[in-house]
């Protein structure tokens, strides 16, 4: 629950700009444990981009901790939580779960997860573990 709440809180905090981040987890376990909110270098309502220097620092830290990016998340602030054409063309971590959060409604937050491999989007169920 903590991971989901942290992602939603980050998306709400940055609304109406898109929020983005990573959830790291122990390598090979497919278990997201450590939420890392990243800066949206684009500071945009319709685009997000990790800051390249922050990404290097975070990716090295994961390497040192024997972790991997289990989830890559971002928010859509006026549209549904479904990968856009841009999301698909940029997706470059075939083993990651791409989580999309929509903050377009004030009182409910859509929270959905996808695999994006070779341009093909597959939605997957989200199961929350304690």
């Amino acid at each position, binding site marked *: 629950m903590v991971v989901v709440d942290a992602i939603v809180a980050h998306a709400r905090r940055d609304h109406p700009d*898109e929020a983005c981040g990573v959830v790291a987890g122990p390598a090979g376990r497919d278990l997201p444990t450590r939420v890392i909110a990243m800066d949206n270098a684009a500071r945009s309502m319709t685009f997000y981009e990790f800051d390249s220097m922050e990404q290097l620092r975070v990716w090295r830290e994961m390497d040192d901790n024997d972790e991997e990016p289990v989830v890559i998340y971002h928010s859509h602030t006026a549209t549904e939580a479904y990968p856009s054409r841009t*999301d698909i063309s940029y997706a470059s971590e075939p083993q990651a779960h791409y989580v999309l959060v929509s903050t377009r409604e004030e009182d409910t937050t859509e929270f959905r997860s996808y695999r994006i491999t070779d341009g093909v989007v597959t939605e997957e169920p989200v199961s929350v573990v304690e």
Partner: protein
Amino acid sequence: MAIEVRIPTILRTYTDGAKQVEGSGSTLGELFTDLEQRHGGLRERLVDNGGGLRRFVNVYLNDEDVRFLSGLDTPVKDGDTVTVLPAVAGGAL
């Protein structure tokens, strides 16, 4: 001594699964050309048709993003570490 190059998961199909490979050259561009001889297909994923760095890829020399240095003309030397990471980006449109 050689230049160490760290390869992200998505490009390890070109390195037989290796996380790290070695190469040589006096600039980043030469290093990528050298790597291509042993890891065919890799260079095309890093360099675009115009001979510049691809937009969707981040390349770092030690602790610096090479876009803030001289891109593919950035000088490299034995003992350096080059890290390749896919850019993470997207958006609603």
